[in-house]
């Protein structure tokens, strides 16, 4: 795979990933990850201090599935949808079929509850610090670290970033 194909594969994954979340097809969200995998949402505040605990930490695909079941069946929150805007992908390292990439994101959240219906606000900005594996032309996340600049979470975080 040359550099251009590699970048294409990474970009395709990022686009498909954010589109899946924005389209509320969350049951498919875990399939963007390998198993085992790591999905972490943490803040620069914690990272800079070397602190391990952040907002979300999952180390298996099943933990991601459990998050989705909890979101659908257990958790209570204001109904909303996301729109992810993502920057160009910067490939920061490759080793065989393992790729490191950084992508900035911004998520706008639109509320669908009767009080705030149709209001959109900038909900979170940050950077995806990803490790991907490309197998047979298909890229998956082995590790996705969502490094959140917006440490001050508005209300709550239930839909994945």
């Amino acid at each position, binding site marked *: 795979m040359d550099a251009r194909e590699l970048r294409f594969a990474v970009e395709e994954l990022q686009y498909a990933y954010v589109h899946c979340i924005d389209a509320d097809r969350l049951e498919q969200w875990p399939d963007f990850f390998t198993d085992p995998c790591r999905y972490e949402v943490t803040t620069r505040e914690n990272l800079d*201090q070397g602190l391990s605990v952040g907002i979300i930490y999952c180390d298996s695909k099943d933990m991601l599935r459990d998050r989705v079941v909890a979101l659908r069946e257990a958790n209570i929150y204001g109904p909303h949808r996301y729109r992810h805007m993502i920057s160009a992908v910067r490939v920061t390292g490759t080793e065989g079929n393992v790729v490191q990439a950084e992508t900035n994101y911004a998520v706008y959240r639109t509320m669908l509850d009767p009080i705030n219906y149709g209001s959109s606000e900038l909900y979170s900005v940050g950077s995806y610090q990803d490790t991907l594996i490309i197998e047979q032309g298909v890229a998956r996340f082995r590790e996705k670290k969502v490094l959140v600049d917006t440490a001050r979470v508005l209300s709550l975080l239930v839909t994945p970033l």
Partner: protein
Amino acid sequence: MSAANELQSPWLTWEKDPTASVPYQVFLDSVVYEREQERLFRGPIWNYVGLEAEVPNAQDFKATFLGDTPIVINRDKDGALHAFVNRCAHRGALVCRELRGNRPRHTCVYHQWTYDLKGNLVGVPFKSGLGNATGLPSDFEPAHNSLHKLRVASYRGMIFVSYARDVEPLSDYLGTAMRAHIDRVFNRPIRVLGHTRQFVNANWKLYAENVRDPYHASLLHLFHMTFGMYRSSQGGGVTFDNKARHTLLQSYRRSEAEEVAAYKGTGIRSYQAKYTLSDPSLLKGRPEFPGLSIQTIFPSLVVQQIQNTLAVRHIIPRGPDRFELIFTYFGYADDDAEMQAIRHKQANLVGPAGLVSMEDGHAAEIVQQAIVRDKDAASVVLMGGREVADEESLVTETGIRGFWRYYRELMGFSVPASVTKESESWTHASSVSQ
């Protein structure tokens, strides 16, 4: 007189059951909010502001809040803790402009007035003038121009400050029952594991009620039931300090058979055994504490222990209809690698994305949204009766009643002499007659 009058009329219209209802006005009024800043956050009580483990070394500082007032806590070269309002004595600028750090002194960037770690003014540029400039008048006294110092005390590594000159000792403020629980949680040196922040569009007292309310736990937070962690049929209850201003909620599992029996026939949605975790490692922990505990220290601290997750939550009011919640997660300094991994994973249960507790901020918000126009209407806080007393039940709102009783006392509203069914109005005790 004017402040009293502003408060007087709306409060006097309130005549509903004072021990077991809360007029929505207290969640809406900026006048009430201002008075809280004066009488609670700057009042004759202690407010939690941080952990000693956040400022472990000499010269470490942390910028934080007392109510909505920005303050700094720092550790002097001799290890002593000091706290002061984060506002330059000169022209009022924010002196400490970073969240955390380590400095031998604090210098305001505006005109470089400099303060030592006790908050004393130790440097003023051009104080004695320069060339034709005369500098400060000779009667300028640096000692009268220090940062506004706060009383500081810590208990088991939790730092509290008081704005008031006369305040009972911190250990008395906490009381025997609350100290006993703090002693259990902070039984050895801790290590901070991380911080998260949540910004909620609701009055801070809606959250203060929430964390004193075990009744909602099994009904709002469905993760517990969905994955089999908690039911109202569990054992547990509410313990107060002797003024019922602080609360300790505890719950523990009874036998499966007892719990199922207690739910049978109630038709409550909360008992559902339909889901299991695909990855049960989330809930795998070590026996450490019996059950779950949520301790509230009036007005702005929560100490939580949910399985192996330990955290303090600092409630920061940001106006009548907004507050911020800062979680600081911790473990113990002697945790082995496995225990660190357990705490890391179980942190998923709490915080802004907490599988178990993310709903609390949302619950506060949907109240704030709905009460918007009806200041005269009131909530019903009758579960378990009208009493404010320790209770061996989780289906009770006694903790909320205790909070309001002490709140009214500090705010200067009369506290009903008895807790029976009199429909005494919430009259203004101290300033109504002025």
